[in-house]
């Protein structure tokens, strides 16, 4: 009563309308929030037993897996969930891109989302080292070596990341701090801004079908509303719920039937800095950049191309000034997108071999 909670529920849930032509991909943003929530809950449970020291990290994870009641469940949910979360955030970005929903006046929403994706990947990267396994140790060795391709500042960046020349106890401490203390507030702040912008500007309709109202000139602020749209609750809320259930079902499917998908044998052997595995590769979401770096003869060019691609990706709404939102009516953009997507998939699988 004091804070008008009933009013918030009335305006934001019951009276809130969404465009009639929304599709299932509109739930991906919500799904990313759910995925993050699962990571937070399972992460806190792991944090109670995890010891961030090279002598104890692997043992403490094994204790979580074998001695802590249902520790295996939370650990596997956290590990599988991290990969699924990155997948969901990537899919969310791709669908927003294909539906042109990054366009004016939602440029900052896209930029915020892009930064969230980068933070999510850094989350995955920093968490990867924590179990201190052969896989995590050597994958981190690779990834922290990648900045050295950049002249002058590359080596110091690598040194700062590792806290020395090699991946050591210092690296583990730094990655642990990054994972549990530094990244979460940054992520929450970005997500707050992202959600604020979505609410403030109003969600964008798809460019498919009849509703395509964003062609108006942007001269003043106006929250986009859909008075004749579907009510958020229960219509869209139910869609979000069954997508959430599907997400959890997929998570447990992987845990049950594909247990080695994210846990190859090296992921169950303690890190040995003196024993380089035969095939070292980073996590799947970094395989494409890694493979590109290996393919381009000049490493500096390799890293610069990737940095430029990231900058273009983040600033794309400012570069793409065409009014047409429908990607099906933009053959060049569609071609470029397909080319990049195929390249990414090819490099990913190439990097795996």
């Amino acid at each position, binding site marked *: 009563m004091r804070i008008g909670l009933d009013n918030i529920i009335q305006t934001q849930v019951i009276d809130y309308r969404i465009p009639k032509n929304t599709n299932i991909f509109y739930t991906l943003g919500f799904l990313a929030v759910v995925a993050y929530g699962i990571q937070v809950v399972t992460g806190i449970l792991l944090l109670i037993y995890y010891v961030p020291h090279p002598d104890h990290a*692997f043992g403490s994870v*094994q204790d979580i*897996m*074998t001695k802590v009641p249902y520790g*295996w*469940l939370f650990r*596997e949910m956290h590990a599988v969930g991290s990969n699924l979360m990155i997948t969901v955030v990537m899919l969310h970005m791709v669908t927003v891109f294909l539906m042109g929903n990054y366009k004016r006046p939602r440029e900052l929403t896209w930029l915020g989302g892009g930064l969230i994706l980068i933070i999510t990947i850094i989350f995955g990267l920093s968490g990867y080292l924590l179990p201190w396994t052969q896989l995590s140790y*050597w994958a981190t*060795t*690779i990834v922290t*070596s990648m900045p*050295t*391709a950049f*002249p002058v500042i590359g080596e110091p960046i690598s040194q700062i990341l590792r806290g020395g020349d090699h991946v050591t106890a210092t690296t583990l401490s730094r990655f642990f701090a990054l994972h549990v203390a530094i990244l979460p507030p940054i992520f929450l702040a970005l997500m707050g801004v992202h959600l604020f912008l979505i609410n403030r500007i109003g969600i964008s309709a798809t460019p498919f079908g009849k509703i395509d109202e964003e062609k108006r000139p942007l001269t003043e602020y106006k929250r986009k509303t859909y008075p004749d749209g579907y009510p958020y609750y*229960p*219509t869209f809320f*139910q*869609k979000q*719920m*069954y*997508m*959430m*259930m*599907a997400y*959890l*079902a997929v998570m*447990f*499917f992987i*845990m*049950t039937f594909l*247990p*080695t998908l994210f*846990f190859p*044998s090296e*992921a*169950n*052997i*303690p890190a040995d800095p*003196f*024993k*380089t595995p035969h095939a*070292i590769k980073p996590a799947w979401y970094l395989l494409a950049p890694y493979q590109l770096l*290996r393919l381009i*003869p*000049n*490493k*500096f*060019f390799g890293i*610069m191309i990737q940095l*430029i691609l990231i*900058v*273009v990706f983040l*600033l794309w709404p*400012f*570069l793409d*000034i065409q009014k047409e939102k429908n990607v099906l009516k933009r053959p060049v953009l569609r071609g470029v997108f397909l080319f990049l997507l195929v390249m990414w998939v090819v490099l990913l699988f190439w990097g795996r071999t």
Partner: protein
Amino acid sequence: MKYLILGGMLLFLFPLTVYADYQQDFENEFLTKPWAGVQVEENVCISCHSSEQMKPEFRTIPEEWQASWHAQNNVSCEHCHGGDSKDAALAMSPQRGFLGSPQYKDVPQFCGKCHIAILTNFLESGHGKALMAGKKAPNCVVCHGSHNIRKAGIDIISVQLCTKCHSYERAKVMKQALFLTETRIGELGKKLEELKHEGVYPETDEQSLFSTQAEFRALFHTVDVNLVKDRTGEFTAKLDLIDKNIQNTYSLLKFRKNFSTLLMLTFAGMGFVIFLMTQKKDE
């Protein structure tokens, strides 16, 4: 705005084109790092023995060692021969503990620096006593090789090898005495590897299996069939315990699988029900 961003990017690209030519040295260094797929052995013994200056008969040693069980377990030149593998000038200096190659008779002590239990049993065996007495007898490398050491197993006891010195009859009896326990050790080893693939690291059982195997193989070096037969029960009991632990772990994994299947079906079912509700609403 668009031109501002494009201009900024061009400025960003400019130093790239200027700097690129100077990157070759850096790239070479980058590619030689272990994670780039090329491992660099910073061992002067290896580099010297691989060089053209080395006598041809010694030049194959690095290649043989690289394929050996010792190499796979990080046992390098200096661990057997002493010396300093990091310092070319003093690599073969006695001050750095260089031992060189042992005489034929001294090979058991040379290997026994690490394989202590095996040395003790070998010296008490017919093989060891004959060797120490200066008679014709095998030393370690006759059966196991020197630089090209393979992972030990009962396959070493073979007609080809044993009949070099004597008939195969006694060796065959020994191989039969070893067979069941050795086979079981191998099977348990495979099961422990499988557990690792399942996300469990059975450290205690692995150590227990390793020490049981080492003790059993040390016993074999006495070349005393009766002793091996007498003590086989002792080793079987140890292996039974490891096997029981493995079975318990498998039961635990089965429970986990069933539990996560239940969760999967629960969420899939709930999702399906909600989906049906939305379909009804749409109608």
